[in-house]
């Protein structure tokens, strides 16, 4: 984080630093806090229930790092309430997760950037057949 010290505010060092910004890849974000671990555990547990709804296309990954009910007709009537509850709880956890990671690193202003990063990675890691929103916001089957 001591960029000012390294760069000494000159063009060349600053440029070199930008070019060598691979050094940033070395730095890790703090994610080992009790709050983050608790959220992670809660989401992991919920995923066992959510996974089938991702699989059926009822629930999809939004482009802004959350989940949404995409096709209510893919859910049996008796399960609609359950899936709505799952989606709401998942989004609450995700929102808290992004906020907590930013806070744990002393940069609450990073929350949106973290959310955007997660949005992309959730989609990249989603299983084939799951639905996600593309950059235009249209539901797309992976």
């Amino acid at each position, binding site marked *: 984080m001591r960029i000012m010290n390294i760069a000494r505010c000159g063009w060349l060092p600053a440029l070199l630093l930008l070019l060598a910004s691979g050094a940033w890849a070395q730095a890790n974000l703090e994610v080992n806090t009790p709050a983050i671990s608790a959220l992670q555990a809660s989401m992991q547990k919920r995923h066992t229930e959510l996974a089938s709804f991702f699989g059926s296309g009822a629930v999809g990954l939004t482009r802004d790092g959350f989940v949404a009910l995409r096709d209510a007709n893919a859910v049996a009537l008796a399960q609609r309430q359950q899936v709505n509850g799952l989606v709401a709880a998942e989004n609450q956890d995700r929102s808290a997760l992004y906020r907590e990671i930013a806070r744990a690193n002393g940069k609450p202003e990073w929350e949106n950037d973290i959310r955007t990063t997660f949005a992309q*990675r959730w989609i990249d890691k989603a299983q084939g057949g799951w639905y996600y929103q593309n950059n235009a916001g249209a539901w797309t089957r992976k």
Partner: protein
Amino acid sequence: MRSLTVSAGLASALVLQGCVTINIYFPAAAAEKAADKIIDEVWQLKKPEQPASPSSNTPQSK
């Protein structure tokens, strides 16, 4: 000669501003790494050899 001094001053002001910009740069690569780690655990994508003990990696000095 004076305009040279002025432009030199302007240039150094720009450089200083550049430093500030760099300082608030978002570490995208580190964020991606953190996201991958969390997503892998939430979605159980990588079955770890040792059953779910995230404390196994040694804490790095910051």
